């Protein structure tokens, strides 16, 4: 039985400081949604509100047809996986996993069987009698995962579960978490500050900033079509140029930016272009060429990236990072044009 999680316009304060403002979010049954953002953006606060460790000042939280808003934390029936594992140091691995079953008054024998079976699923059979202190970081997180899964919760929540692991283990673990979540079909909320982790593991990702969700979408859409300048910068559009349309000729739009820099873009390639817009370009999406239809620039420092050369460029519209082909390195101080490649650029409407 899978259920959906609905967060309805919740707000939260620490003392007088608002941390979340009117945040709404829904996670469909069986879906994994990540909250992604830098520290202090409110992602952990959101998770703690759903877990019941914090109380919202307004709004409601529903899990399936249950209203969680005023339910005490221990009655919410949510599986939680913590950043620092949070295993019970005084209990063995098996007792750790069986803890939730014990609270549910499941008989000792069945408890042991279920816990042992779950330990086997996370690849830790045979370690049941050890104390958590005798385990490696990866093993600890597997125990934490088993402990959260064994109670078969309708909702699983992860609070930066992989940040204490080394890079290689992180990738292995996130694949495993995703597989277990898929197989069980458990609705999941995942908090992380790591974009790659969020994008690789999630059905949808909510990018958060200052207590709000800036955009909630599939990783593909977030990466290709950010909805605003914040998300664009977050997913790696290094250059954001504010432009204003000065002439339209069929599909062709000529726009002017600061300092009189002019550029012509085709709506066939870039989609609909409004009168005022922001052109977002990744460094890869602005190719440095000797000539062509693009933004005139003077090249500055050149660095070698392996797949391309990167140039710090000066244009009338401001400083820009752009990449050029390895076949024709260009000297600092030379003039060039920066030609935008549509698939690596986005058109944004300026925020009011």
């Amino acid at each position, binding site marked *: 039985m899978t259920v959906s999680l609905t967060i309805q316009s919740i707000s939260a304060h620490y003392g007088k400081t608002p941390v979340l403002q009117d945040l709404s979010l829904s996670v469909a049954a069986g879906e994994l949604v990540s909250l992604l953002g830098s520290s202090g953006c409110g992602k952990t606060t959101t998770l703690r509100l759903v877990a019941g*460790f914090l109380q919202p000042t307004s709004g409601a939280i529903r899990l399936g047809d249950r209203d969680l808003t005023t339910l005490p934390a*221990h009655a919410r*029936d949510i599986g*939680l996986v913590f950043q620092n594992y949070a295993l019970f*140091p*005084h209990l063995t691995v098996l007792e750790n996993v069986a803890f*939730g079953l014990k609270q549910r008054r499941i008989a000792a024998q069945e408890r042991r069987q279920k816990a042992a079976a779950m330990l086997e699923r996370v690849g830790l059979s045979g370690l049941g009698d050890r104390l958590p202190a005798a385990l490696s970081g990866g093993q600890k997180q597997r125990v934490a995962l088993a402990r959260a899964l064994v109670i078969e919760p309708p909702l699983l929540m992860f609070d930066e579960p992989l940040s204490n692991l080394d890079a290689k283990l992180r990738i292995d673990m996130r694949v495993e978490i995703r597989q277990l979540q898929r197989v069980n079909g458990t609705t999941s909320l995942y908090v992380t500050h790591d974009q790659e982790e969020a994008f690789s593991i999630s059905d949808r990702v909510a990018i958060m900033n200052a207590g709000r969700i800036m955009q909630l979408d599939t990783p593909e859409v977030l990466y290709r079509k950010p909805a605003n300048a914040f998300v664009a910068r977050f997913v790696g559009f290094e250059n954001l140029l504010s432009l204003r349309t000065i002439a339209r000729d069929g599909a062709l739009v000529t726009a002017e930016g600061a300092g009189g820099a002019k550029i012509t873009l085709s709506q066939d390639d870039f989609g609909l272009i409004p009168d005022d817009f922001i052109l977002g370009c990744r460094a890869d999406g602005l190719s440095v060429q000797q000539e062509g239809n693009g933004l005139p620039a003077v090249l500055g420092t050149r660095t070698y990236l392996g797949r391309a050369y990167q140039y710090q460029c000066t244009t009338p519209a401001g400083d820009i990072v752009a990449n050029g082909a390895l076949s024709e390195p260009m000297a600092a101080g030379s003039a060039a044009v920066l030609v935008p490649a549509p698939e690596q650029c986005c058109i944004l409407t300026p925020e009011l």
Partner: protein
Amino acid sequence: MARSVHPALIAFTACVFLFLLAPLVIIIGSAFSDTSYLTFPPQGLTLHWFWNIFEIEAFRTTAITSLELALLGTALSLLIGIPAAYAISRYRVELPSWLSTLFVLPILVPEIVFGFSLMKSVTIGLGLPIFPSLLIGHALLVLPYSVRVVSASLASFDFSIEEAAISLGCPPLKTFLTVVLPNIRAGVIAAFILAFITSINDVSVSVFLTGPGISTLPIQILAHMEQFFDPTIASVSVLLMLVTVAVMAVVEATLGLTFLTK
């Protein structure tokens, strides 16, 4: 190769140890002296003064009172101190920072003043009988130790463990008893021992609160000395030392002494 140590440093260290230990040697020596007055070096050798302690009823009854006070007072202080330490650590951000200082104040107030004010407020003010007054006095006297030592062990406790238990369906009070308490056990034991030793050795607070018919062992020792200057005092002191050493030996064997200083 052993590093050479300056002879002056060795001499200085020896002096410090002599200064610390010499009085104890004198007391231990006098306890065995076969004279009717305190003297050192002991003249003759006898266990008479040790038997004498048990002959004198006042020593027996006050020893029992002291033990009762130390056990009950310490228990009472832990009953208040553990939840207080928990709240101070758990809600460090939410609670005002002077709160943890408040619990240490009894240490900062001179014990004489503390004892006198307790007499004025508890014995005279509330008109409580002697034993309850003593109990309150001792509980308050050792409360700072309970709060501080338990706080120290809570400082290294990861409260997300508590949240993990709650999220798994364990109600808060049960979580405290089955998850938090077992993990701060060492701190609670250390607090108990420190508080117990402080209580059983206390004079300044007790002297204001004892009254007709009820006294503590240290007060009885003082009273006895005013009347008889015989080696009984020394032998009681030796017994008290032995009890303290025994407690410390148990701590060392089970937990290691270093954890008292953690």
